[in-house]
């Protein structure tokens, strides 16, 4: 079995969207975002294609989360447009939009002590009253299994650790079963294995046809799991393309102000970014 077939098979068991017709591209052209007079993004062109994992990287304050929020339709744009499936994201009705894209934010707080399963079930809200609601239980169970939170189902959110909360939030996003996934630092607060699990999950969704945009701080994770990488700095795109093309030692040093060595991974050949110490 080819790797792609394996991934596709894995995806069907993990709550991934399997409807091949729902392959949606997400594009931004000449995007500018302003908050309180400060330009957080300027002239950003960005395309996330279906079936691919697209990583957003860059130093603190580069505008990664702002770009993700603009792609999600959360932020008004000062210039440019974000097109989801060819339609400006702001013109999708809220509920229709929630059936097209799910967003994992950095903030995983829940105000009331809901049990974990009920939080994950909230991800099914956009589908209430549709035929897809028949699959609610299936989608919830699969999403909790895929994010390793099944054993927490009856626990309340305030009783969880930071990493567990992050995985519960991810389970809710997976249960939403949308063709576009926007993930803001899904690996922050997670241990080594769960970091890899989350990105394997992202890959599985992409293999099933989903469009995945993920903000990452760990350049090695981006190099290992992303098909495309966009490097941002001070609200502008520095480079975009395959990880091996974008992640060069000179560029990383110039953008981050930290000298690095970039060597090929001994087994896979993916770029490994090692700070010069």
């Amino acid at each position, binding site marked *: 079995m080819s790797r792609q077939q394996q*991934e596709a098979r894995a995806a069907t068991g993990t709550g991934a969207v399997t409807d091949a017709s729902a392959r949606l591209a997400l594009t931004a052209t000449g995007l500018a975002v302003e908050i309180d007079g400060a330009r957080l993004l300027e002239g950003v062109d960005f395309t996330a294609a279906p079936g691919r994992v697209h990583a957003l990287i860059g130093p603190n304050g580069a505008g990664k989360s702002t770009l993700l929020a603009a792609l999600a339709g959360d932020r008004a744009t000062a210039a440019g447009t974000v097109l989801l499936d060819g339609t400006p994201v702001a013109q999708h009705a809220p509920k229709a939009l929630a059936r097209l894209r799910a967003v994992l934010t950095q903030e995983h*707080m829940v105000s009331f002590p*809901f049990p974990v399963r009920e939080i994950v079930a909230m991800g099914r809200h956009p589908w209430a009253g549709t035929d897809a609601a028949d699959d609610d239980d299936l989608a919830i169970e699969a999403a909790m299994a*895929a994010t390793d939170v099944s054993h*927490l189902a009856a626990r309340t959110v305030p009783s969880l650790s930071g990493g567990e909360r992050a995985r519960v939030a991810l389970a809710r996003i997976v249960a939403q079963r949308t063709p576009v996934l926007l993930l803001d630092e899904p690996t922050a607060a997670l241990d080594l294995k769960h970091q890899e699990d989350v990105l394997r999950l992202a890959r599985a969704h992409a293999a099933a046809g989903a469009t995945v945009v993920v903000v990452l701080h760990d350049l090695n994770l981006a*190099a290992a799991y992303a098909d495309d990488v966009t490097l941002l700095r001070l609200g502008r795109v520095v480079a975009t393309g395959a990880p091996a093309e974008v992640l060069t030692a000179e560029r990383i040093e110039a953008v981050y102000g930290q000298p690095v060595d970039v060597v090929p991974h001994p087994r*896979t050949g993916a770029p490994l970014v090692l700070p010069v110490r």
Partner: protein
Amino acid sequence: MSSVRGTGTVTTPADDVVPMLGATRGRPTVPRGGLRLRHAVLFGGLALALGACVIVSAGAGQLPVAPAEVWTSLLRGLGLSDAPEALPNTDSALWNIRFPRIAMALLIGAALAMAGTVMQAIFANPLAEPGVVGVSSGAALGAAAAIVLGWTALGDWVTATAAFVAGLGATLVVYLASRAGGRTEIVTLVLTGIAINAFAGGALAFLTFIGDTGSREEIVFWQLGSLNGARWPEVAVMLPLVVTAGAAALVLGRTLDLFSLGERGARHLGVRVEAVRIIAIVVVAVLVCSAVAFAGIIAFVGLIVPHLMRMVIGPAHRPLLVASALGGALLLLLADLAARTMVPMADLPIGMLTSLIGGPFFFWLLRRTRRRSGGWG
């Protein structure tokens, strides 16, 4: 696809977690039937307690009436019994004074508890309460202005309308002033409440100062809260308001759950956040202001009741609203019974009682929330 991904073999996430499904860590999964049973026990228990307390409360007072006689009188009034009165004037005392007062206690208790539940949901904060954040004193200020400035000459509805408008304004001010980034910080909310209560308190003092003796007594009534003098026509006004606003809150139920994820989270799930927020604010204003218009400020009901109910059946808002309505009705019925009977020949202000109980409760809740979030989150 890119060739530079790191894993040699793809482990499916599902394979990884199969051993976890046995739930070896954490508490065992509560079957959803267990929650349903809890709902049934709580709702049934509250309804029974309500029925019993109505009978007992109606029988208590300067003219004691045995529970069986209260029941017969109830049936007689509804045309279901033709048994004669055991004591003269029983029916008159019950139907003209005690029953309307009890009906009002039930309605106002349900209204305040549901208002607290909805407010806590849209503020995404379990400490939001109409009295604490100043909605009640805003409404009382409106009512007092109508009394002192002589607007009441325009009709019976003026006081209630003034209470409603001022209360709605106070709700909006609280909402706009205490939110930041789609969330409400506890410290901002409480400080906003202090500011609004201080302003309303000052304005009420001014109105008390310029008003005549009659107006002053009425204003004191608003500030202390009392169900004394509740009559059927007031119940007839209150009933449709509470039923309509309560029904609207129940319709919003599932959506209110999603606000627990913050406004951004709710929006990502397809909620029209602005529209829901406005509807919820109007619902809160209708519930609180109608209660204040007829009974003055009765604080903390909206804080205590939803909190206790949440501890029993969890935070899902639809069942929580029903439980809060029943629990609020029961709490106010008991508080009014205490207000009428604790001191012989005196009718204590009910708002005073709820504040004496609710103040320490709020303090405890504040301490607990602070401990849990490790600061003034």
